[in-house]
């Protein structure tokens, strides 16, 4: 009996501190943002009071959401962000697959080292990794000179590699690539090599073995990796901020501006709610796809 009370007490002691901390510093702030999206902006930034005295807006409103849909520019920025996230995910997948495949098919003793080598750049500071591309794509660097030299040969105007959509895409892929390599590798590593032998014995060529056997079996890894790339890219503001031009604004930049630039918190909160909904929908989709993939595997 005393043992049961004791174990209940232990359970409380272990579970409560982290739960309480995260309820306060993770869930509560999110709920407050959701609530703030129905408020008016304060006179000097921030939020307007809920109960008013004197002039100025107060109380709750749907105006922020109406404003979002009133101007197509906001939807356009959302769509542009989705496009950038899709392209980044596809490019990451294309680059990560051969690496993950190679690691999964290496001798066991080399695998951990190859994995470590793939995630090591990810351990260096995020800004440094973005900054590296400022150097490589910079107007005075060899790459820009070579590209513009070739463009000049065929009589075209020089282009700027830095501060362009291209630079943003390169930065996104570079920063998120390890997120794709790891889940792909863990998925590919589990495959039984006998399946491929069986396919070969049944007369499948290399392409058929990949497309009919390896690829479908790797789908859980593909979906997990895609979620890990797509979601952070969708909310990214720093890479477009550093590598992009003025026209490469994504949702993240728009949100940042509402909170730190024009200081319209309620509209920033509305944009945050929209982004959260998009992320949750995508996560649910990826989760479902991964579950179906796993069922496929069994």
């Amino acid at each position, binding site marked *: 009996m005393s043992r049961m009370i004791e174990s209940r007490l232990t359970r409380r002691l*272990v579970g409560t501190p982290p739960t309480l901390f995260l309820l306060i*510093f993770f869930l509560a*702030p999110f709920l407050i943002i959701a609530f703030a999206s129905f408020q008016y902006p304060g006179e000097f930034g921030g939020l307007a009071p809920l109960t008013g005295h004197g002039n100025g807006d107060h109380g709750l409103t749907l105006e922020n959401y109406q404003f979002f849909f009133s101007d197509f520019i906001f939807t356009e920025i959302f769509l542009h962000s989705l496009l950038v996230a899709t392209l980044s995910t596809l490019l990451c997948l294309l680059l990560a697959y051969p690496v993950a495949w190679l690691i999964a098919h290496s001798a066991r003793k080399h695998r951990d080292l190859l994995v470590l080598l793939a995630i090591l750049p990810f351990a260096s500071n995020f800004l440094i990794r973005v900054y590296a591309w400022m150097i*490589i794509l910079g107007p005075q660097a060899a790459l820009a000179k070579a590209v513009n030299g070739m463009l000049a040969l065929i009589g075209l105007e020089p282009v700027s590699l830095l501060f362009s959509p291209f630079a943003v895409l390169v930065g996104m892929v570079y920063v998120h690539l390890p997120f794709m390599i790891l889940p792909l590798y863990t998925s590919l590593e589990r495959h039984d090599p006998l399946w491929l032998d069986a396919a070969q014995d049944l007369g499948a060529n290399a392409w058929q073995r990949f497309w009919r056997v390896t690829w479908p079996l790797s789908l859980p890894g593909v979906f997990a990796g895609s979620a890990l790339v797509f979601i952070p890219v969708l909310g990214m503001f720093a890479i477009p901020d550093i590598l992009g031009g003025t026209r490469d604004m994504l949702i993240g930049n728009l*949100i940042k501006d509402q*909170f730190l630039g024009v200081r319209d918190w309620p509209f920033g909160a509305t944009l945050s709610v929209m982004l959260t909904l998009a992320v949750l929908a995508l996560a649910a989709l990826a989760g479902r796809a991964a579950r179906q993939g796993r069922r496929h595997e069994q």
Partner: protein
Amino acid sequence: MRKPAPWVYLAAAMVYGFLYVPLLIVVVYSFNDSRLNAEWVGFTMHWYQVLAADSDMLTAAGHSLLIAFTASLSATLLGTLAGLAMHRYRPRLLPYLVIGPVAMPEVLLGVSLLVFFIQVLHLTLGMLSVILAHITFSIGFVAIVVRVRLAGMDEKIFEAARDLGATPWQTFRWVTFPLIRPGVAAGALMAFALSLDDFVITFFTAGVGVSTLPLQIYSMIKIAVTPEVNAVSALLMLLTLALVVIASRLDKGLIRAAS
């Protein structure tokens, strides 16, 4: 073992190159005797001397270390508890709370904490708000590493301890903790590295009160790029490299846990 086709080797080698060449360029140009990061002129230690004399950068580095130390210590404590609770008691809510801050785009956590600190807690943004924010996103990483470590263990060990009359505390102190210690240490190092590295969430929660190394690097990149940035980058890379090596020595499963 089926050997990959030659072109797979080539493609993978190119991707590894893509991962490393940019960082190598940053390091090489930190020794370049030119203000422009464009072509190699000659070897110099000048930018490291500039860095050593940059008091703003040094203050920021001090802040970063203090924040990383405090936040990783707290996150390790809370994260270990969370990992234990999730393994042992299968709570419903906690896994979502733990994964949420890790899985959400950082900008969302940043702005929601900004509003929460100012509007609800009436806190002046500074060291404290940054530390609280860093704890929030680090707990998940520690919890996941600890949980993975626990999942690989034989439950019978804990049952044996209980059957022999050990109290929950004794079981934890003499059985569970020694077994998960490498995971806890690796999680702590990870939390430290993440805190040291964080830009986005710090950007929203630091206000004008406190500057960290990433914030300082950001303002240099945005305003005036000099190879001093390369020098500080090279040193930071060295530091994180050391942390990663130590962490992977501590817990062989860490790399696996990270995926």
